[in-house]
């Protein structure tokens, strides 16, 4: 009896996986295929951002880009795509209960799945950007090694943090509408303190608190280690960040499970 029910559970899980996949795919399509330029936008956005900062930090405020041996544009790009993916996961996640209301009210759906899907869709775009980045970096003379195999772990890490934070904020947003001002502030803070513009060592040296508090310092540093510098990743930060990510994700998961129904009433 229990074996049969276990097998049935397994089948339901397959359906659940399919469902998450499908909604992610559809989200991705909605985002990128409705425009004429489509997927190019996913790439164009970070590229243009990089161009602006590249110009500022290599022509106007040169000191910031000094001491970075690699091509500074590539250096920026590697950090920026990961950070932007996180911000987008968070912002999309935050609004999921609203944008997916048409489904929630019509078919019984596990709301967690909707958040996972929406972050998954952004992960697709991130992977696309990473491929573009790797090609560009190779063009600028970067050599790759087996260290690249750590990349999926870093992508997973962004996914865990992004979707977890999205789930938590989606509920908070309904009770505290003005949280969005604070979120913008935090996003800006993160933007300047995640080591997108400078090396992680600099942060460790000048502001160790940020180094230990902001998981993105470690994530972006590890991205650069395995792609730009071609050295082994920092295993301590990888482990610490994955654990942080898992905790945030589990917290978000439980927040959605316990509070989404009462939140729906206030929508």
């Amino acid at each position: 009896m229990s074996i049969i029910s276990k097998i049935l559970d397994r089948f339901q899980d397959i359906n659940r996986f399919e469902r998450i996949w499908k909604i992610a795919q559809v989200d991705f399509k909605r985002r990128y295929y409705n425009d004429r330029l489509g997927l190019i936008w996913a790439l164009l956005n970070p590229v243009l951002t990089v161009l602006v900062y590249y110009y500022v930090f290599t022509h106007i405020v040169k000191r910031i880009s000094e001491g970075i041996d690699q091509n500074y544009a590539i250096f920026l790009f590697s950090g920026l795509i990961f950070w932007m993916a996180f911000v987008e996961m968070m912002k999309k996640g935050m609004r999921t209960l609203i944008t997916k209301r048409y489904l929630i009210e019509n078919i019984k759906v596990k709301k967690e799945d909707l958040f996972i899907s929406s972050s998954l869709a952004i992960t697709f775009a991130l992977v696309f950007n990473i491929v573009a980045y790797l090609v560009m970096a190779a063009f600028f003379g970067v050599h790759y090694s087996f260290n690249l195999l750590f990349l999926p772990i870093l992508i997973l890490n962004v996914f865990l943090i992004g979707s977890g934070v999205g789930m938590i904020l989606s509920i908070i947003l309904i009770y505290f509408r003005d949280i969005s001002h604070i979120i913008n502030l935090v996003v800006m803070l993160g933007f300047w303190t995640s080591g997108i513009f400078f090396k992680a060592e600099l942060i460790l040296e000048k502001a160790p608190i940020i180094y230990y508090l902001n998981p993105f310092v470690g994530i972006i540093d590890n991205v650069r280690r395995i792609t730009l510098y071609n050295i082994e990743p920092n295993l301590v930060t990888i482990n610490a960040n994955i654990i942080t990510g898992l905790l945030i994700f589990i917290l978000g998961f439980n927040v959605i499970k316990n509070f989404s129904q009462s939140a729906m009433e206030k929508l």
Partner: protein
Amino acid sequence: MEAAIAISLKNISKTFRIHTSDANTIRERLTNIILRKSSNYKLLKALYDINVDIYKGESFGIIGNNGSGKSTLLNIMMETYNPDKGGILETNGKMMRLALGMGIDPNLTARDNIYVNGSIIGLSFKKIGIIFEHIIEFAGLQKFIDVQVKFYSKGMRQRLMFSIAMYADAEIFLLDEFFGGTGDQEFKAKSDKAFETRLVNGKTNIIVSHSMQIIRKHCKRALWLENGKIIKIGDAIAVTDEYLKSQNKSQNKS
């Protein structure tokens, strides 16, 4: 022989907190705490002690004026809202709510909508692939499979939703003012027929409508809600008759 229960509601009440001063922001909540103002809200009771059993395979009507609590009741059945403490809701079977303008994403094609809805309700991609043609054919949308739904007419959307629900193996249908909107005679005949055959197949329909004709045509039993209370429950014709009488009375008064 007792019929199996599809949905059972026991002591279901629903109270909404309506905030008079809308303390939805951090600033307002903080000032409320500092000034020791108890946050201002009114309790609005939308449903009072609803007890009803809906049996498998039956068509059950819900009638009542606007604001009588019909939508709240449906939202509780769908588990979108939590009932107040003490209420027990039991549902047996996959549910799908059919309402105009809901359930389908206008920015997606019919194909994507079918897959999303189908897989949420619990079908595998394989199964959806098998029923896909039937859905499209029943809805008469062969030429528009890969067109975004936003370009569809109201009737076409309705047809799409109805046929997804039909073939997607939903066992309990919540039809929320779903009929009466379109004048498509051919589809109406089709859906009427589907209704009759579906009843044979043992599916459950819960029909919310302002049209007494629809309730009488499809339902054996009905429930009349007013101000969140059950006024009458029983034979559909008797309930609708009484409802219409009271409507006439109140019209005559005014």
